[in-house]
């Protein structure tokens, strides 16, 4: 991969200013500064320059020029990502899609929305609400994150078990290739002929092309949603209760678990009336028709009681439902209040391994002298441990990062994966060597080359080089339980 530009910054900027509003070709350090990182601010790099094109044709021209000179391109939406996937390349261009922020069409009968990539996730549901529709995936950052970024990361949210991830809610994307070609992947139908390129593009972290339009499916807003909150005096019991619900044939719209640290922090923050003495808390939301919710809520309450819940409370109004969720939804800022900094991890595990993973994490927490609070998308096995640290204490972030890395490796060891919804980016590139062997990683590199042979789209992200992996696997700090499990 060559990353050495054959063109100077000034010459490149001048070329871009030939067809993009000169105010939106950014070259000065002060204006470039906000682009130096995404939501994972520990990783930053100043880009060579930033462009904010306004039309698809301009995006195509930017791509062609960058292709010609071998200049790296990093596409960027709202910059809310949590894996440094949008961290700039120091000799590259940041291609901001911020100006592509229009909802092009909502077709209520077809239950679809055609969107520019810079449309915010929540804005889709807000616009669709007048038709009784909404967009399913709801990542925590949905107020700010964009649909283009959601496609890049295959974003999830709290309703994935029932309503799926981004990949399940897309019909088509328009993609600009590294050569500047404009192609449509997918169609207005539910599938298209040939290999499923739409799935391949979703979650590809901006390494295969730049998305300039997205068509998503919309869902009818459920008639009713109600939430049952249950407290438990052990994590194991709460885990069994999750299994109990599923075994009963109920697929909740949302099923969230919090550990004792998260319960107390969230309750202090939101005054949601959580059982503060509980070791684990479950929030189980059932949605659907009135009849169905009525039937399933009664069953869920019974399952929780039978499986040893120490408290069970069901929302009796929309206000109460919102309050119960408020604690969970503000868990991250709540934890932010009890610690100068926190680092959010994103592993996924088979649910049955939860107790073991939490126990091992507790041991590591003691070992590193760092507290950890856990919120868990229990329905789909996605664990978000929040490691509390203080960036002003020298060496503490490094220890936090190492602790985080070990948690992810533990997830792989128990049959899970290193990232459920945040992506690999730069952050988890080390752990890719634990999740995959060299042949698999090489296959990823070959896939990448089918789209971007010169390797200039978002270089250094997503898939590590094989040499890097060999070095990482042989590092001394590796522990007995981090052997890659590949049969």
């Amino acid at each position, binding site marked *: 991969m060559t990353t050495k530009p054959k063109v100077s910054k000034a010459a490149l900027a001048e070329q871009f200013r030939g067809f993009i509003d000169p105010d939106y070709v950014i070259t000065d350090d002060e204006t470039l500064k906000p682009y130096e990182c995404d939501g994972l601010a520990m990783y930053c790099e100043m880009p060579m320059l930033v462009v904010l094109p306004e039309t698809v044709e301009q995006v195509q021209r930017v791509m062609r020029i960058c292709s010609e000179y071998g200049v790296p391109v990093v596409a960027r939406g709202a910059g809310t990502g949590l894996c440094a996937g949008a961290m700039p390349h120091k000799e590259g261009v940041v291609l901001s899609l911020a100006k592509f922020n229009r909802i092009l069409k909502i077709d209520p009968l077809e239950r679809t929305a055609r969107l520019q990539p810079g449309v915010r996730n929540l804005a889709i549901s807000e616009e669709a609400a007048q038709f009784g529709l909404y967009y399913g995936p709801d990542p925590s950052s949905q107020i700010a994150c964009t649909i283009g970024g959601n496609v890049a990361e295959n974003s999830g949210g709290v309703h994935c078990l029932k309503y799926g991830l981004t990949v399940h809610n897309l019909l088509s994307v328009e993609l600009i290739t590294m050569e500047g070609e404009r192609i449509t992947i997918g169609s207005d139908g539910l599938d298209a002929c040939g290999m499923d390129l739409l799935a391949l593009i979703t979650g590809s972290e901006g390494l295969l092309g730049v998305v300039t339009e997205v068509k998503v499916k919309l869902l*009818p807003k459920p008639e009713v949603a109600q939430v049952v909150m249950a407290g438990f005096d052990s994590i194991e019991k709460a885990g069994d209760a999750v299994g109990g619900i599923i075994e009963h044939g109920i697929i909740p719209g949302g099923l969230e678990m919090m550990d004792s640290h998260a319960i107390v922090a969230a309750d202090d923050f939101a005054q949601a009336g959580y059982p503060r003495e509980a070791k684990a808390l479950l929030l189980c939301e059932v949605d659907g028709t009135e009849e169905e919710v009525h039937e399933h809520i009664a069953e869920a309450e019974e399952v929780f009681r039978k499986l040893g819940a120490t408290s069970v409370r069901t929302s009796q109004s929309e206000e109460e439902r919102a309050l119960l969720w408020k604690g969970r939804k503000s868990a991250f800022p709540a934890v932010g209040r009890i610690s100068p900094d926190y680092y959010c991890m994103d592993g996924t595990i088979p649910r*049955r391994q939860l107790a073991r993973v939490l126990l091992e994490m507790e041991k590591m927490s003691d070992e590193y002298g760092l507290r950890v609070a856990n919120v868990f998308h229990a329905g789909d096995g996605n664990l978000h441990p929040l490691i509390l640290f203080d960036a002003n204490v020298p060496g503490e972030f490094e220890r936090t990062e190492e602790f985080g890395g070990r948690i992810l490796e533990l997830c792989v060891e128990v049959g899970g994966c290193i990232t459920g919804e945040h992506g690999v980016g730069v952050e988890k590139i080390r752990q890719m060597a634990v999740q995959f062997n060299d042949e698999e990683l090489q296959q990823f590199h070959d896939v990448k080359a*089918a789209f971007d042979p010169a390797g200039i789209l978002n270089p250094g992200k997503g898939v590590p080089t094989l040499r890097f992996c060999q070095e990482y696997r042989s590092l001394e700090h590796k522990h007995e339980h981090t052997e890659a499990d590949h049969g």
Partner: protein
Amino acid sequence: MADISQQLQEQVLLARDAGHKLNIVGGGTKSFMGRTADADAGTLNTGEHTGVVEYHPVELVLTVRAGTSLAEIEATLAEHGQCLHFEPPRFGEGSTIGGTLACNLSGPARPWSGSVRDQVLGVRLLNGKGEHLRFGGQVMKNVAGYDVSRLQAGAMGTLGVITEISLKVMPKPAASMTLVQEMDQVDCIRYMNSRAVEPKPITAACWVDGKVYLRLSGARSAVEATAAKWSGEVLEQGDEFWRQIQHLQHDFFAGDAPLWRLSVSSVAANPDLKGPWLIDWAGSQRWYRGEQELGRMEALAKAAGGQASLFRGGDRNGEVMNHQPEALKGIQRRLKNAFDPDNIFNPGRLYSWL
């Protein structure tokens, strides 16, 4: 129930060394699909690579070897009150899960429950270099690496041999009811779509022979309450009707006339083409019987926002899938080369140029 992945791997390596091609065959029930198999290629039989590798009902995840029959999988799931929610069609008792994924086949529930591709969580794959690789996993959320697992859907084995699949499974709905009423082909499009806008437990919508069929499934109380509100007669043999649609056993599918499939916008007006039509997936999937040119069917599908393919019958030596624009052709050729550099697997089965 046997793990023959090592033999499969050896066969791939042998073929590679000898410069041979391989047609991948599981249960052999989908030989009518795609283009005619290369007569000079050998056969790689995955039908003996069977068995449930792991199944934890509480996790809603099943891992099976690719040659396992749908019949066996569904029987295993039924013991725990679970099912394959995408209602895969079977074209014979031997239909396997591997072939179902390779051909991306899903039944009447697809618009609501998702397709086979949607339920796939991970695969093991033998690539053209004979490397046995693992992608995805056994968890619902996984964004580590490119989604090679779902890329296999519709690839018809051109990228490699799927040897193992992990799938999301779901509880069987507690109750199910079908409503039927007379309606013409024009009105049914709007009708099915407007029902789908309502937040009700609809799980299938199909029009055939001047009648529209809607299925409701889920909690009994919700199914009964919705049925009472909506128009239409309760169809006594509802499950049997949907079984016929799912497995293409309805009278519409009988006989040798070429069977065309149009995957289009659910709300598009039905193409102005005389002959028998069956409209499924609330309008997203349209079936047509009759001698036609692929180009003409593609044009009709394009006007409806989608694509056409010759699903069964007709000339299978020519192209049978909607043509691909040059840029997409290039990407798919390069992907083929990335997985199968010596062009061993299913040559020409999906497209003449792949």
